[in-house]
């Protein structure tokens, strides 16, 4: 142990590798951090960091960089890798690199490694998938590989955890190596043009290796750390030397393959037996021209069926639990507004959050399972053509499907689409896909439109539920088509997608994803829901001075005049009191605008609060209606079903109003968090505002038409 020789008290170690090298699984193994692991190329769209406990007891910062094939990037993800490694002062510039390569595809995975070697950063070569290699009978002479490639090499498995402690002790050695003098050569033969450029610009960039200077010449257009003077200098050097970007790329790449391919072949002791290939046989079915799409849609149907049926029991259990707790507290605590705040505000809010945990858990369980297995890339392949027709990319399918869980991670996953237009369209239309936050709204309202009968073993309500999802998908595709015609681009678009071999899912990764998503929902969304619930309770319990009292007296005298019985009188009084409260007045203020859609001011309140997050709708309804009644045992649905207009006695949630409301929730942009993410991803408020306008406009129009048609 020679800690004094280490350059940094907490050294930075970067994890780098090709997409599908199993890098993220190793990151999980090393840091224990909760993070999403998938088979889809480029699932790591954000930089993830974690703390790594080294074998000498010291700590290191581990940075998980996005998967990349080479230093010649086409996507934003890959550009991030280049940006971090070309500039020695960059905040992500590592003290050491763990390069992860799939040992079963070693010839394909060493290009980026050989490029990394030319940066002069200490590199450790970790050959992943040791378990698969053993099964397939692949074997390498590690000592020979290590010697010829010039990097410490070991075999490990992110799946089984094999080799992790060895990796940690090798890292200590790697970090303890005396700092090497700045690398002043490259492993590959520089072209004369490249040497010329290096000579012309190296004075301006002290501390950079020759290969970093070459990469700067290749990427001068987008490297953001270069100042205008430096860019001009590099561009001049390029035109003086006759440097050809693409030609040099190809020549460098070919040279590198020529260097390491013989090494790989000479170090290989046993090659794969190539017996029956499970992936090939499974893909015969799963990507079949006919059965492929059939299987895909069956899986989707199964997911929605599971959401509805598997979640029912735990949901009922949670609802009953909160109902009992609320009744218990009300009968044992003194009559006071604080008691009401606790039972009608806080508890109702908690119930509204927790009750949707089963559905969210089931959805993310199934989606991350599909990702883990490697199916998502197949979906991208199968639907690329159709997606292209609508101005999207095969990869958009993954974003659109993930949008069924939550638009926020879905929009972030579009970074793997290298074409800006396709990416922008995907971002703009993804929120049309019904996310999990709409499930509560759909669940509550669907019963008012469709009776709970069954056709065979599928319930009619489940079919209607799927219909709403399809409606969202159709809207997304049509909107995408319109944007395809409007937006212009000169960039070229790619599919070129690696289909990973099917693997049994690592359940630890799946559970981590489910846990992380549920936690995010309950903590992040739940916090907003709880705050809004309490604010709403205050707004609906209090009003301008005297207004609530006056309304109560007026209601009582009008009830007397109509000779109503005690229950009806209480309902009328409650309704009138609510109407006079702050919340009622706010709802009434917007009522003229939403009356054509069949919405009253109570729904108006819910619409307003839903712009914070859609799932607030149900919590809002719970608050509004539990104030209208003394008993808390009824579920929200039953409460709403019993709501009648106090004067006309007609059902408030008639099929016309309920359908209109459902359509509004299918189409409208009602999520501040999504808009914030769209702003972040498009770097302008223009796109989230356009998105808000067209989505909410479509929502208003369709709700209005539906209400006109049914009433």
């Amino acid at each position: 142990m020679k800690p004094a020789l280490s350059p940094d008290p907490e050294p930075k170690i970067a994890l780098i590798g090709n997409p599908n090298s199993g890098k993220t699984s190793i990151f999980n193994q090393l840091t224990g951090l909760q993070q999403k692991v998938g088979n889809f190329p480029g699932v790591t769209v954000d930089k993830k960091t974690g703390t790594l406990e080294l074998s000498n007891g010291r700590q290191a910062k581990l940075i998980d960089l996005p998967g990349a094939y080479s230093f010649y990037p086409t996507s934003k993800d890959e550009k991030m890798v280049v940006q971090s490694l070309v500039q020695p002062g960059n905040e992500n510039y590592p003290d050491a690199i763990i390069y992860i390569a799939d040992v079963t595809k070693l010839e394909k995975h060493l290009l980026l490694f050989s490029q990394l070697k030319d940066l002069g950063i200490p590199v450790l070569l970790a050959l992943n998938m040791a378990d698969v290699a053993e099964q397939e009978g692949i074997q390498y002479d590690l000592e020979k590989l290590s010697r010829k490639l010039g990097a410490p090499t070991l075999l490990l498995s992110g799946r089984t955890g094999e080799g992790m402690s060895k990796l940690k002790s090798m890292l200590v050695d790697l970090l303890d190596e005396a700092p090497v003098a700045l690398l002043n050569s490259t492993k590959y033969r520089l072209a004369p043009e490249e040497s010329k450029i290096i000579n012309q610009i190296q004075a301006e960039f002290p501390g950079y290796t020759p290969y970093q200077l070459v990469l700067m010449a290749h990427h001068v257009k987008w490297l953001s750390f270069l100042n205008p003077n430096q860019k001009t200098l590099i561009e001049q050097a390029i035109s003086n030397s006759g440097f050809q970007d693409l030609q040099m790329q190809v020549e460098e790449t070919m040279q590198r393959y020529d260097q390491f391919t013989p090494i790989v072949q000479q170090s290989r002791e046993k090659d794969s037996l190539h017996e029956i290939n499970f992936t090939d046989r499974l893909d015969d079915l799963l990507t079949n021209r006919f059965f492929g799409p059939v299987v895909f849609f069956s899986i989707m149907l199964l997911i929605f069926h599971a959401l509805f049926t598997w979640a029912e029991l735990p949901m009922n259990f949670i609802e009953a639990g909160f109902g009992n707790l609320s009744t218990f507290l009300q009968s044992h605590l003194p009559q006071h507004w604080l008691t009401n705040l606790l039972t009608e505000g806080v508890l109702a809010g908690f119930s509204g959050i927790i009750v949707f945990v089963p559905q969210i858990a089931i959805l993310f369980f199934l989606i991350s399972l599909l990702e883990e297995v490697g199916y998502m890339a197949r979906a991208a392949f199968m639907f690329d053509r159709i997606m292209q027709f609508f101005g999207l990319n095969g990869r958009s399918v993954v974003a659109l499907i993930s949008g069924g869980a939550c638009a926020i991670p879905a929009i972030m996953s579009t970074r793997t689409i290298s074409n800006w237009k396709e990416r922008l369209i995907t971002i703009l239309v993804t929120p049309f896909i019904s996310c999990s936050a709409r499930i509560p709204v759909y669940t509550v309202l669907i019963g008012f439109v469709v009776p709970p009968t069954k056709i065979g073993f599928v319930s009619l309500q489940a079919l209607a539920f799927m219909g709403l999802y399809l409606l969202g998908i159709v809207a997304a595709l049509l909107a995408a088509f319109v944007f395809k015609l409007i937006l212009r681009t000169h960039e070229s678009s790619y599919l070129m997608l690696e289909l990973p071999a099917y693997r049994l899912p690592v359940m630890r990764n799946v559970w981590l994803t489910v846990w992380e998503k549920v936690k995010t929902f309950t903590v992040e969304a739940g916090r907003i829901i709880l705050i809004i619930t309490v604010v709403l309770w205050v707004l609906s319990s209090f009003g301008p001075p005297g207004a609530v009292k006056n309304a109560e007296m007026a209601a009582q005298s009008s009830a007397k005049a109509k000779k109503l019985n005690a229950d009806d009188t209480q309902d009328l009084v409650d309704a009138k009191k609510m109407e006079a409260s702050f919340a009622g007045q706010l709802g009434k203020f917007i009522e003229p605008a939403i009356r054509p859609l069949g919405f009253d001011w109570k729904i108006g309140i819910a619409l307003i609060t839903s712009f914070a997050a859609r799932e607030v709708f149900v919590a809002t309804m719970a608050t509004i209606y539990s104030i209208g009644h003394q008993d808390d045992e009824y579920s929200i649905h039953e409460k709403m079903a019993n709501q009648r207009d106090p004067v006309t006695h007609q059902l408030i949630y008639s099929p016309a109003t309920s359908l209109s409301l459902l359509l509004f929730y299918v189409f409208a942009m009602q999520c501040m968090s999504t808009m914030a993410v769209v702003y972040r991803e498009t770097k302008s408020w223009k796109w989230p505002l356009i998105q808000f306008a067209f989505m909410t406009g479509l929502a208003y129009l369709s709700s209005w038409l539906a209400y006109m048609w049914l009433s």
Partner: protein
Amino acid sequence: MVATSNSGNQLAKMKIGSKGHVSHFTDCCMACKLLSMGILPGTQIEMIRSAPFGGGCYIKADNLLIALRKSEACCIVVR
């Protein structure tokens, strides 16, 4: 290795189930991407199947499974 001459067949026109070796590429930009994924001149290519809704193909390059669009497959010349 990047040439526009028409010796050999375009990968896009290969029959399903047939095999060949990459001869060269007809588009420099596409060649760079394919090279970095490990599709090189000399790589063995097998046409596995075409996409369900047309337009794309599923190929095996050595032991790598790759989905390509028709336009991408057109850039690879196979002998």
